[in-house]
């Protein structure tokens, strides 16, 4: 079997403008929704209590809502979780008359009492309480992790490549993150710690895609002296596309398995990965290469940088620097 039987290089870069326009529009839409809707942060970041309750039959959402509201909780969220029999109740941090935080056990006990488990058959499955100081810390740590990854990848790319490639790679991959976040803002999916982990993992994963293409471009500059920059990039993308699609396809198979069979806990994690993988291919292949082209990558840029004294011997090898 061979999926990719491509006789001629596909002229991707002829459509560079269109491909980047799509990218830019998606990016702007993501920024807009992030600004307009904001992220629906999980209690891990905001602090508060989450309860998961399961019913023997379909959960009566409206009556549960009114029961919980009677307890004096405003700003609660009650929704189905996984199936119609499971519900998730989100309570904000609550203070008593003296301004002291009400403990989550008291909160969840009060709610469970109101739900009247004896007659309704409601069963408490899970309680999660995060105090305000922890929530803030987790949010800050999450941001730190994100900054660390960005700096790490910037350093790695600038060490690995000439600056035009590094810049193009970083722009392309950061815009992926914004797009994932934009999806979460648009659909108001819950943004939790595990989604953050997925976002960071996929960032590290898709940067690699740009590295592969850039490597191939560098190799082509050396191999095909008569091609112009556009043809060289087209050839590089064409000859790596088989590997790109197969690897990402394999990873996506695993992610899809989690998305479909992993249950509600893994759902958003897998969803963030799916969006990240799809946009990761798109942006690192089409956007990053096109940006590098527009930044004016030339043969001289690359060949010059490679002439280190100890590399002379290997420079004779026509395949030197070749990577799949």
């Amino acid at each position, binding site marked *: *079997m*061979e999926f990719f*039987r491509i006789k001629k290089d596909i002229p991707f870069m002829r459509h560079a403008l269109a491909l980047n326009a799509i990218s830019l529009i998606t990016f702007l839409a993501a920024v807009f929704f992030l600004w307009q809707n904001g992220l629906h942060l999980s209690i891990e970041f905001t602090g508060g209590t989450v309860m998961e309750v399961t019913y023997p039959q379909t959960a009566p959402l409206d009556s549960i809502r009114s029961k919980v509201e009677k307890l004096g909780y405003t700003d609660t969220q009650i929704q189905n979780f996984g199936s119609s029999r499971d519900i998730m109740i989100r309570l904000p941090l609550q203070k008593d008359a003296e301004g002291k935080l009400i403990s*989550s*056990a008291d909160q*969840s006990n009060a709610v469970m009492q109101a739900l009247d488990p004896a007659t309704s058959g409601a069963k408490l*499955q*899970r*309680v*999660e*309480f995060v*105090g305000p*100081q*922890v929530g803030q810390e*987790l949010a800050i*740590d*999450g941001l*730190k*992790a*994100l900054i*660390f*990854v960005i700096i*790490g*990848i910037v350093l790695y790319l600038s060490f690995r490549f000439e600056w035009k490639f590094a810049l193009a790679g970083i722009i392309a991959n950061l815009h992926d993150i914004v797009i994932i976040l934009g999806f979460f803002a648009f659909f108001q999916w819950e943004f939790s*710690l*595990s989604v953050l*982990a997925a976002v*960071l*993992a996929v*960032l*590290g*994963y898709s*940067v*690699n895609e740009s*590295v*592969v293409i850039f*490597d191939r471009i560098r190799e082509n500059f050396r191999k095909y002296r008569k091609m112009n920059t556009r043809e060289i990039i087209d050839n590089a993308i064409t000859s790596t596309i088989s*590997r790109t699609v*197969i*690897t990402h*396809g*394999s*990873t*996506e*198979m*695993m*992610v*899809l*398995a*989690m998305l479909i*069979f*992993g*249950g509600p*806990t*893994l759902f958003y*994690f*897998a969803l963030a990965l799916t969006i990240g993988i799809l946009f990761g291919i798109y942006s690192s292949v089409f956007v990053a290469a096109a940006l590098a082209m527009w930044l004016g990558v030339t043969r001289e840029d690359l060949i010059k940088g490679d002439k280190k004294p100890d590399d002379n011997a290997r420079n004779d090898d026509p*395949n030197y620097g070749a*990577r*799949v």
Partner: protein
Amino acid sequence: MNRYPLWKYLVIAVALLIGGLYSLPNFYGEAPAVQVSSAKPTIRVDLAIQSRVEKILADANINSTGVFFENAGNVGSIKIRFNNTDIQLQARDLIQQKLNVDQNDPNYTVALNLLSNTPGWLNAINALPMPLGLDLRGGVYFLLQVDMKGAVQKKITSLATDIRSQLRDKNIRHQGIDRNQESLSINFGSNDEAESARTLLNTSQPDLVWLVKTSGGTVKLFGEFKPKALQDVQDSAVKQNIITLNKRVNELAVKEPVIQKQGTERIVVQLPGVQDTARAKDIIGRTATLESRLADPVVSSINLGETPPPGMDTFRFGENRLGVFKKSVIFSGDRITDASAGFDQYQRPAVNLSLDAAGARVMQEVTRENIGKPMGMILFEKGKGEVLTIATIQSEFGSKFQITGQPTTESANDLALLLRAGSLAAPMEIIEERTIGPSLGAENIEKGFKSLLIGFAAIAIFMMAYYLLFGTFSVVALAVNLLLLISVLSMLQATLTLPGIAAMALALGMAIDSNVLINERIREELRNGSSPQTAIAVGFDKAWATILDSNVTTLIAGLALLAFGSGPIKGFAVVHCLGILTSMFSAVFFSRGLVNLWYGRNKKVQKLAIGQVWRAQEK
């Protein structure tokens, strides 16, 4: 060219053997067991109890499949494994009956438990199954914050008392001691007095940095904690709270509780299987109180069952004695500022106690009138008193005194801990809490592994269909990756959580990248007309650079999560990072070994089974 030297095959064989051995315990199930732990702060579970339990079982002809003694955080427990639940129940009842003298007020908690079925020879090489996180088996998780300001304040209060008496001893007059957040200041009338106090305190209170400051006619001597001393105060506050928590949690008879320090001022408590958060919180949050009373001067203790003298209170003393005490309390636990183990002047183990000013005044009065008479310390928990020690008053004393008569340094240590536990430990606050029902836990583990298996199967089918024999090599390498990952995690005893399973799945999904790279590269070499053997060698060599690249970027993200992640994210990050490392071994080193083993011997290989190699030039 495609042959490994022998040592490389040996490395692979050893890795597979170790990987197999250490991942093996995860596949044994769990067997019914009985756990014996102490129900009281004064009772210790040790090896002597173990032999007693073993004898009880042997006398009744009950066969166990293993007896294990564990010492976690200074609290021992014994676990006995049985073949089936019938024997387990029988043994539980028997041990409970024989071990506890008073059935209504048991000294030992005997609880049903589950123990890994791992055979002894695996245990002997320390091959243990991965512990499951709470999200996989249900239970309660608390994150407690220790109030460090409170701990430091307590230390400052006790220092102030000491300093006051030291200055009095040396006849240095001062005009009062002020206590601040993390420092002390002593007011003096003259510079000379302040200076002489400084010389004295520099040697007697080395934990503080002393500085004289003069402003507007008043002379003040400031004492500030040295960073190291402050650190010690905070460390001991956390340590003491952990010990207290250990005792409390033991009482809940939880299977495998985890009580750990997190960061500088936080404590994690994990109680698998506990569902009743309210009760768990009640027990964890409960503070023990300590009372000091005069004992009956005639008979300070009697046997269980004897009638106590009229007008006296009795409390349990050791396993089968009762302490007899007067009703009035000399001082209570909050008067104790410090208790530590040490030695008396004859080098016998002793416990050094310090009291605050109010406690010292009362103590002085009482001891003056009762020299030669016994007094004792009683620890109250859940309204029940437990005698910690009864000792004879040797002389009149005040804020500092010693309790001698401890048989060993260990028991002196224990007593000091208990006395401190009875005094007010630094207060704690619950800042994070998770409760997961057991059915939800079982569901999580099932769903997690189901998606892992389905994903693996999908990748395996695709790889074998697309790359034929080389795809099969890749799949074997991927399976080896999973095996190594599980064994490394088991060796590290990393707790397996749902994010951990997700990371495992993702690690496999990403690891296959390396094999795709290699296979694609070999095909490309064949397409360009290389001979099969050259294609293999060049393919592996050239793919290696890219594999390294791809793993570096993924590792950057993994390390960031490891460094800044907490809770569930940490579990994800650990597996993610380890998965990258094991994949480098399995996808490159191991799969090359397989290929070499298959093709390396035959120099005239005509064709590689790597699927169709399509050439654009052909029709």
